[in-house]
């Protein structure tokens, strides 16, 4: 009993890559609708940060000449967008590790599908989830006083930047996930580095108020670039404006950071997927 030629159409074409990617993405999107808690928990953290900083810490943060509490909230929201996009890494890291540990990755890898499609589909679904989160956060932002004060083109460019960055981060997360021994480890060690990265940045406080040794680090931190680029593109306050390279070229630099991440980690993740003894690592 062998497979009849008419039934299974195996061709190593780009068309199959797209088809398989969409099939896998649908699986993950279906999962978001089945377990809406996923979306809820992806939202709860940024929303708490918005409320905490807008109403609790915000008053104590020095924005220089840029003004009072209202200005801080406008300053904060693009920072929260940036932080959320960086955190996009978390859910895919855990998701990939779960699939590997449950043997689903093995099943995918033993099918005559395109290898890039498993990660391609997962990251695509993750992008979809992140776009949803950013939309809901934007609405939350409007409620606390955030406004887009730039042109439509700039604003759209801002959202495009966030989506690009989120997509790059999901590939980074996929790569990390493929190297984690278990979902438990992935849930903690997998993205512990995210916290220092987002706090040593201009997400919540202007860099000018930080100690001088930290300032250059924070200035070149990709998260700062992303947040500053968003503030520029959405026309939000930029306190203590400087003239350094990352400040002047925040928008192209943020795009560049995202594309470099993507160019490095997408091939690395696909390679790890093909060659690593995924799932064979478990007990």
């Amino acid at each position: 009993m062998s497979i009849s030629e008419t039934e299974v159409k195996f061709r190593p074409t780009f068309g199959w890559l797209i088809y398989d990617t969409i099939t896998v993405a649908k699986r993950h999107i279906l999962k978001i609708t089945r377990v809406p808690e996923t979306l809820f928990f992806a939202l709860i953290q940024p929303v708490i940060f918005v409320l905490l900083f807008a109403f609790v810490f915000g008053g104590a943060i020095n924005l220089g000449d840029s003004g009072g509490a209202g200005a801080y909230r406008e300053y904060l929201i693009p920072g929260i967008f940036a932080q959320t996009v960086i955190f996009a890494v978390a859910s895919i890291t855990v998701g990939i590790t779960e699939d590997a540990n449950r043997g689903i990755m093995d099943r995918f890898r033993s099918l005559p599908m395109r290898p890039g499609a498993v990660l391609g589909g997962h990251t695509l679904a993750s992008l979809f989830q992140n776009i949803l989160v950013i939309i809901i956060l934007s609405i939350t932002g409007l409620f606390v006083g955030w406004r887009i004060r730039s042109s439509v083109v700039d604003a759209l460019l801002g959202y495009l930047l966030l989506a690009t960055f989120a997509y790059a981060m999901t590939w980074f997360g996929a790569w990390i996930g493929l190297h984690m021994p278990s979902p438990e480890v992935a849930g903690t060690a997998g993205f512990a580095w995210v916290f220092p990265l987002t706090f040593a940045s201009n997400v919540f406080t202007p860099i000018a108020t930080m100690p001088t040794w930290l300032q250059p680090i924070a200035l070149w931190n990709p998260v700062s670039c992303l947040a500053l680029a968003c503030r520029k593109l959405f026309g939000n306050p930029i306190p203590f404006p400087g003239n350094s390279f990352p400040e002047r070229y925040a928008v192209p630099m943020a795009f560049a950071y995202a594309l470099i991440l993507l160019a490095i980690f997408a091939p690395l993740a696909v390679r790890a997927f093909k060659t690593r003894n995924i799932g064979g690592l478990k007990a």
Partner: protein
Amino acid sequence: MTLAIEVSGLEKSFGEVQALRGIDFTVEQGTVLGLLGPNGSGKTTIVRILATLLKSDAGTAKVGGIDVSSSPDQVRTMIGLTGQYAAVDEYLTGRENLQLFGQLFHLSKKQAAQRADELLARFGLSDAGDRGIKGYSGGMRRRLDLAASLIGRPSVLFLDEPTTGLDPRSRLGMWEVIDSLVAQGTTVLLTTQYLEEADQLASRSVVLDHGTVIAQGTSDELKSQVGGDRVEVVVETPSQLSQAKGVLASIASGEININETEHRVIVPTSGGSRAVVEVVRLLDDAQIAIADIALRRPTLDDVFLSLTGRSAEDEPSVTPPSKQRSRRGARA
């Protein structure tokens, strides 16, 4: 004779741990080969290499005459894999799972749906097909997992410990399904720690220990290595043990052993069940009362014991490589 699986000189190391040290075996088309051995003996590693999940360090492995490392894509169209875990998506229904894997096998949407229906019916899951996997029992999950591996009508099926963790009833159900697949011409490579399972399903077995093949053959061939059947008699009066031994010497095919504590006489025989009748008659004539009598056939466990000096169900003995293996958590 067509060979469905050919493995020769297969080697694989994980770091310093040599999981496979030169494995050779073949499987004829339409038969079941049991890969037998304790944890860490290399069973899963062999399956992972044959299923294109892992590259070997040396040697060749062919499925359906096609080399797994040079043409993995072609091999993938011929194989089905059921691992130790039910590799199905928790958040989807049974039907959605089968359709997903069908589509990834590049069946058309309509074909994938049709195939999902067929398989659900065949595995007694039609009623549960539209329920989420979360509510499935362990046995149902395994059946769905097996169904998923049959989506592409594989000619070669890899079953890695397909009944581990199942209750006896589900295990019997699994055995029936596997039997029916083989009856239809599927070649099956089955790994198991349950010697009884290999005995039941496999036409031939390969016994592994520490990454080497220590024996292979049919169940009967393996069993003949530890001698044939034995009649075991428990006598009512312990003082008659040696008398029984003397009486039975005439029909024994080898040396008779006596277990003093259990009042048991163990008589090797080649006479099968007729030997039991003979034993009863001889003991009755000698007026030796029998408390219990049984014809015992050697199990594969006996085989393993006689080949390695330890039981297959024991944890690997305290040699450094296996200790290291379990610490690393690698499932070799």
